């Protein structure tokens, strides 16, 4: 079985042998992959009981925890990377969690669906309905996403916090890159991936 494409891209960003904390680690796929291919040690945080059981089954260290309560059980700068894939938009305060990510990790890796993708704009701007797409499969009344943002929004947040964007990758649902997405990331990108650090 092949790895979810965004996880594949992220794996390439992680130095072998490093220590990783994965926020909202799901069934532990990324951590198991990093462990098996890059000798990465780490822990996943996960709130869903079925996912916690799946991580345990996969031999991935998982800590059942609620990201909305922050990372207070973790000391400053104790991880090489704190990773959060597709979870930014479901937490209560994404801004505070980004602070927490860069407090605990030397670098942060964050991915989210870009709400400003042109299809979303069409659905909302012309159709007048909340977008439902491959990246945002739920109707407005059942979505767990409470803080959707765009590439521009996120970069504004990073500028406001004076964060350094080490790497940015904007891709489509299948995680392909294209010239268009490089030129107009906020219009053509479906998923945004960032590697961040505090400016020294």
């Amino acid at each position, binding site marked *: 079985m092949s790895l979810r494409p965004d996880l594949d891209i992220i794996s390439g960003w992680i130095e072998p042998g490093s220590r990783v904390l994965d926020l909202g680690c799901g069934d532990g796929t990324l951590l198991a992959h990093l462990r098996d291919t890059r000798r990465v040690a780490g822990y996943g945080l996960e709130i869903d009981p079925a996912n916690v059981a799946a991580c*345990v089954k996969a031999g991935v*260290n*998982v800590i059942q925890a609620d990201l909305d309560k922050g990372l207070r059980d973790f000391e400053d700068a104790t991880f090489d990377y704190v990773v959060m894939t597709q979870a930014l938009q479901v937490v209560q305060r994404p801004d505070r969690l980004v602070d927490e990510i860069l407090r605990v990790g030397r670098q942060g890796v964050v991915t989210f669906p870009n709400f400003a993708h042109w299809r979303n704009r069409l659905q909302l701007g012309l159709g007048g309905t909340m977008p439902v797409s491959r990246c945002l499969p739920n109707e407005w009344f059942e979505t767990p996403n409470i803080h959707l943002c765009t590439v521009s929004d996120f970069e504004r947040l990073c500028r406001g916090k004076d964060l350094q964007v080490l790497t940015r990758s904007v891709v489509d649902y299948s995680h392909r890159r294209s010239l268009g997405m490089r030129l107009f990331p906020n219009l053509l990108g479906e998923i945004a991936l960032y590697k961040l650090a505090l400016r020294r």
Partner: protein
Amino acid sequence: MSRTFPADSVGLVTPQSAHFDEPLELDCGRRLPAYDLVFETYGELNRERSNAVLVCHALSGNHHAAGYHADDERKPGWWDKCIGPGKPIDTNRFFVVCPNNLGGCHGSTGPTAVNPDTGRIYGADFPIVTTRDWCRSQRRLGERLGIRCWAAVVGGSLGGMQVLQWAIDYPDQIKHAVVIAAAPRLSAQNIAFNEVARQAILSDPDFRAGHYAADGKLPRRGLALARMLGHITYLSDGAMREKFGRELREGKLSFNYDVEFEVESYLRYQGQSFVERFDANTYLLMTKALDYFDPAAEHGGDLATTLRAVEARSLVIAFTSDWRFPPQRSREMVKGLIDANKEVSYAEITSTLGHDAFLMDSPQYMRVLGNYLSRVAAEAGT
């Protein structure tokens, strides 16, 4: 006619006993010249001797963790829901050993045993033992059984604390630590409850400074009171409301101090039946062992430094409605293990049952425990 046990039961079991002649130095400074440990085993030790699991019991537990002692035994061992063929602690794969702790009252040397120095029952003269003493004594039992390294040491409540002690004291002899509904040390509130329980026993006129057996007495009221108090702390407010509510036994108030509410009836029954199977001196000693448990004390209270010694991988489990050892206390252990860069997983099981949840078989609890131990078994080559 012999009874048919369920297919996932270990069936009829017979306790075994091991005698140790080599004196055991205790934390309190005294020594036990010799002692016995009574224990049960389930499953088979494999040829590599790699599949042994040690089960540590809680305050009022004993070596009878699974199966039945007799065809007509009403209830199986205290952790039968977890131990058996196909159960989380799978006896098709593991060789499970459950000893009665030293100081116990069900066969291992304790206050009810005869002191070889005096020829009389120890009673109050039995030394106060600690979790470290238990680990020391159990290590010898492991050696006796030919087990150099436990695939896992598993326990809940006081048993969970013993697991942590095992992982700290004998890091190379335990591959996995499963710590359930426990705490890295007792809180002032925990100690307070233990103290009230002890005072109930100590102030019973029949306690006779712990030498009640010699006088042919039993501090029944004190021990029953201690158990009643304990039971309140094992259940949650919600569980008690659900189980008893304000139900009246006679359906109406009778304006006296007899049993009126169902919860009173339950507590009295629990207290009285406990007296028949438990020794007051053992109860005192076990609560002290709980109060004294504090492995981080040797490192100025720094749990992470203490846990650096650990080599085992750990699974820590807590229950949301457990207010005796709430999830916060388990997270302290998890944080210590993470800060010490140890491998650990933590599951917080949603439950309304309070501390007692660790003895039940809620699906998520069984799934997490089973998934974890299944990997342990695979690692052990079974």
